[in-house]
C-alpha cells in the first residue's frame, strides 16, 4: 500500500517536473539572428543613444521599425573590421541590396495594431518600458520562437506559468488590456485590432 502510494507520488512529481521544466524547453526553438549586431557600439560610434535616430517615427505617424540595408550601407560599404558579422553584412546584404531578415523579438500577430506614435508621443512611454535596455546591449540575445504559434517568446513572457511575472514582461492581449483599463482608456476591439 505504502509502496504503491510512493510510486504514485513519484509519478505525479515526475509529470510535474516534465510539464513545468521540460515542456517550456521543448515548446521554444532558439534561432540565430542573421549576424551579430551591437547596439552599444553603434550608439557610441554615432554619438547618439536615442532610439529614434535609427528606428524613426515619421511625421505621418508611421513607425519605420528596423533600418533598411541602405542605412547600413552608409558606413558598411566595405567590412569595418575582420569579424564574421561584418563579412556577412557586406557580402550577403549590402552588396546584394537585400534586406536583413532580422528575427524581431516584439513582433505581434498580423491582426494586432500597435501604434508607436500613440504610445511614445501621446502617452509619453519610454521605449525601454516594453523593449527593456535593448539599446544598450552589447549582443543580440537569443531569439526563441514558439513552435506552435510561431511567435517570439517575448509575447508570452519568460515565465510559462506567468506566476510572479516581472513587470513589463509579456505582450499578450491581457497585458495591453490591463494597462488600458488601469489608465481608463477605450478598450474597443478595433482600437487595437485590425
Amino acid at each position: 500500500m505504502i509502496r504503491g502510494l510512493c510510486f504514485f507520488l513519484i509519478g505525479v512529481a515526475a509529470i510535474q517536473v516534465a510539464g513545468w521544466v521540460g515542456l517550456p524547453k521543448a515548446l521554444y526553438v532558439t534561432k540565430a539572428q542573421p549576424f551579430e549586431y551591437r547596439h552599444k557600439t553603434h550608439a557610441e560610434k554615432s554619438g547618439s543613444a536615442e532610439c529614434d535616430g535609427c528606428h524613426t517615427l515619421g511625421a505621418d505617424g508611421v513607425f519605420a521599425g528596423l533600418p533598411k540595408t541602405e542605412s547600413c550601407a552608409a558606413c558598411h560599404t566595405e567590412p569595418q573590421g575582420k569579424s564574421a558579422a561584418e563579412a556577412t553584412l557586406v557580402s550577403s546584404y549590402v552588396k546584394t541590396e537585400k534586406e536583413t531578415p532580422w528575427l524581431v523579438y516584439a513582433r505581434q500577430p498580423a491582426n494586432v495594431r500597435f501604434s508607436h506614435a500613440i504610445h511614445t508621443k501621446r502617452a509619453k512611454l519610454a521605449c525601454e518600458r516594453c523593449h527593456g535596455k535593448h539599446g544598450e546591449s552589447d549582443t543580440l540575445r537569443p531569439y526563441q520562437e514558439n513552435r506552435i504559434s510561431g511567435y517570439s517568446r517575448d509575447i508570452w513572457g519568460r515565465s510559462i506559468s506567468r506566476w510572479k511575472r516581472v513587470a513589463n514582461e509579456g505582450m499578450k492581449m491581457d497585458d495591453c488590456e490591463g494597462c488600458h483599463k488601469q489608465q481608463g482608456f477605450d478598450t474597443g476591439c478595433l482600437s487595437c485590432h485590425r
Partner: protein
Amino acid sequence: MKTQKPRRYGMVIDLDRCTGCGACMTACAAENNVAPGHAKATPRTGLTPMLVQRVSNGGAGADRREVFIPVTCMHCEHETPCVTVCPQQAVELDKATGIVNQMPQRCLGCRYCMTACAYHARYFNWWDPEWPVGMERTLNPGVAVRMRGVVEKCNFCHGRLHEAEDKAAAAGKAEIDPADYRPACVEACATQAIVFGDLNDPASDVRKASRHEDSFRLLARLGTEPKVYYRSKQEWVRGLAERGQQEVRRG
C-alpha cells in the same frame, strides 16, 4: 492626457449621383484585402462588403426608371441586430466611434448575424482567401486578412482611422483631422456621391446632408437607427426605402 470625444461616423449616399460604376466596390476590396472571388462564388457566397444593387420601378419602355443603390453595413445604432445575436461577442458597437466592429478572430462562423442583418450587409468566408501569384504584394498591411469560416463586413475602413490617429499622435494632437479619415469607397467615388464624417459634429457636411429633406434611411421602420443615409429627389426612389429586398427584386 486627452482622448477624443465620442463620434458617430456615418455616411450619406446621393442616389441621384450614383452612376453604378462599381468603383466603390473595387476600392473597398483593394483597401480591405478582399481576395478575388472564388470560381464557385455566387452573389450570395462571394464577398462584397460594399455592393451596388440595381433596382427598377418595374415600368416598361419610357416609363422604366432604374436606380443604383450602394449597400454596405448600416452601422445600426439602436439594438444593433448583429451585436444582439452574436453568441461570441465578436461584434460590438464602438461607443467611441459609433462604428459596428466585427472581430473575425472571435467569430465562430455560426452566421446568426447574417440572418439578423436586415440589409444583407454581412458576408461569410466560404473559402480560404487566395491571391494570384504576385498580387499578394498589393495587400494592405494595415488590414489583417480574414480566414475561411468567419463573417466579415464593412467597418468604415477602420485601418484608415488607425492611420489618422497615428498621424494626429505624431503631431501631438488629441483629435484627428477629419480630412485624414475617409473610407476607400468615399475616396473612389467619381461623382462624389458619398459624404462621410461625424454625425455628432454640427459643422460636418454629413450631418447637414443627413438632415436634408431628400434624405432617408433603408428600412427605418425597424427602428435600428442606421447611420448610413441615402438621398434622392425622385419620389419613387425614396419609396423603395421601406420595401424588403425580395419585394424590390420582384420590382
